[in-house]
């Protein structure tokens, strides 16, 4: 079969204020791996992104560029309509998205629209494309599930930081695409977002504090450690319940999930609900004065010591290390 006959893989590459998020390049890299297995090309859809040429460096052949002021604020229904129409135009059989809050909001609606089976939080390239077989965590990171997607059109949500970026030398052609957007149904009234901070979802490194820090006034060193590492800050459930830190920083089973490359837990004992939520992180470091803290059983590296002396010293060591790099 020639290349043109197998329909291209469609990837939704997310941007914020016109600039691509890092996960856009990760999902593009994933889509390229799927396209290589199928012997086809990658088409990306962008919504109000400025410069789309960068996508060519991650295996994208063609970009459908949507510019529509109606979609300036994220709207799941409107974004779903745009992606669905792009999939239909291309005759796509595989759609790839990320695991950002917005993509996870869109994917189930898109699954209904395209009558497609959807696998979320997928951590590897498909082990087979016929049947289409992927692997994902289940039971809140206590197990992995291998599953097949049985429908003609398949939707894959790629877990953040699981596949990484794969650079290719190439260039992407761009064409304007104008989907029809109907009534949006849900209207954004206000957004409350710290613009100068790395979000937990986007972060490669997360620095997290627990009740061992004794009070909100002691978070300065957590913020500083995070800033040295370019990391996001997070906290355990008791800390957010006590109101020491905002709810949005709570990570764990009922809080935000974390799948970072490096998770540093400071003064967190490691309750099972906390570990469940952060276990998808690749490398875990624990700093705790109690050598019996359960977190030491889940961690890769540990320091038994007082956070109030260890953390400031670690900050100095890391600053020296960064200065040498």
């Amino acid at each position, binding site marked *: 079969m020639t290349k043109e006959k197998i329909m291209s893989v469609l990837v939704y590459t997310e941007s914020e204020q016109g600039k691509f998020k890092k996960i856009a390049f990760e999902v593009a890299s994933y889509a390229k791996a799927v396209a290589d297995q199928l012997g086809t090309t990658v088409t990306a859809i962008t919504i109000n992104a400025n410069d789309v040429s960068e996508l060519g460096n991650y295996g994208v052949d063609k970009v459908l560029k949507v510019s529509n002021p109606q979609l300036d604020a994220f709207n*799941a*229904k409107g974004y779903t309509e745009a992606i669905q129409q792009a999939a239909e135009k291309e005759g796509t059989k595989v759609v790839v998205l990320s695991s950002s*809050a917005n993509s996870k*909001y869109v994917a*189930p609606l898109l*699954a*209904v629209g395209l009558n*497609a*089976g*959807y*696998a*979320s*939080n997928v951590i590897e390239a498909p082990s087979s494309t016929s049947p289409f077989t992927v692997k994902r965590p*289940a*039971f*809140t*990171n*206590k*197990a*992995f599930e*291998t*599953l*097949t997607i*049985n429908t003609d059109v398949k939707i894959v949500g790629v877990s953040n930081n699981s596949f990484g970026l794969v650079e290719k030398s190439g260039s992407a052609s761009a064409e304007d695409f104008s989907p029809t957007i109907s009534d949006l*149904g*849900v*209207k*954004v009234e*206000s*957004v*409350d*977002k710290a613009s100068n901070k790395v*979000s937990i*979802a*986007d972060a*490669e*490194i997360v620095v997290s504090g627990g009740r061992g820090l004794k009070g909100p006034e002691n978070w300065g060193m957590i913020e500083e450690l995070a800033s040295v590492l370019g990391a996001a800050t997070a906290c355990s459930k008791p800390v957010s*319940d006590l109101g020491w830190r905002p*709810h*949005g920083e709570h990570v764990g*089973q*009922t*809080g935000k999930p974390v799948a970072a490359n*490096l998770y540093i837990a400071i003064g967190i004992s490691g309750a*099972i609900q906390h570990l*469940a939520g952060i276990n998808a992180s*690749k*490398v875990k*470091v*624990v700093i705790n004065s109690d050598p019996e803290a359960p977190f030491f059983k889940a961690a*890769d*590296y*540990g*320091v038994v010591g*007082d956070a109030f002396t*260890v953390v400031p*010293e670690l900050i100095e*060591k*890391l600053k020296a*290390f960064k200065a040498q790099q």
Partner: protein
Amino acid sequence: MKILVCISHVPDTTSKINFTEGDTKFDTTGVQFVINPNDEFGLTRAMWFKEKQGANVTVINVGGAETEPTLRKALAIGADAAIRVNTAATDGFSVAKQLAHVAKDGGYDLVIAGRESIDYNGGMVPGMIAGLINANFVNNCINLEVDGNKATAIREIDGGKETVSTSLPLVIGGQKGLVEESDLRIPNMRGIMMARQKPLTVLDPVDANNETSSVKFEKPAPKGAVKLVSPDNLDELVSLLHNEAKVI
């Protein structure tokens, strides 16, 4: 206002996770089942709508008869009626089709589901219901107010939150924040007695294919022992993170 609260019957967080039949099925032996935590926050918010705004609250689950104690617990917490769709919950899309059918047929104004279950973590059922019944949808919902036909919700986004306005019929994917953990209710004896008198209707499923199929489960490889670094030698930690783990 008629509210439908979707209740997933899930193993308690502290359960040992094992698989049987050649690692193809979850082993329920000795496992304690509970209301999915994300659903319990939604159920408790529904109780608020019942008490303050006179809403009628029905809870629903897709599953076999073994899930009925979980529905009875929701009735004991205060729901007015329960529905069980009598089929095994095997994939998110087919479960969503069962729930959507009941939601549409029953003319519910508000469908509250948890953002994801803690067993399969698919995170797809709420959105799929909304898509199937063509209702408005707010995911990662941490606050919800309803006034007549209008609703105001707060949604958690990456790095913050946003306030949205919408209208009924509405589906939400709810989570902690809809109510706080301290607001969750433990059924009392009176509630448990009353729950026995409340209707629990068993419905036959509608036709729905499995759009995905589990092939097998596996547990993560046992983790090696933690590598301890002396607090007096943090240079070693920096070096390990750089040279061995390659994460900084």
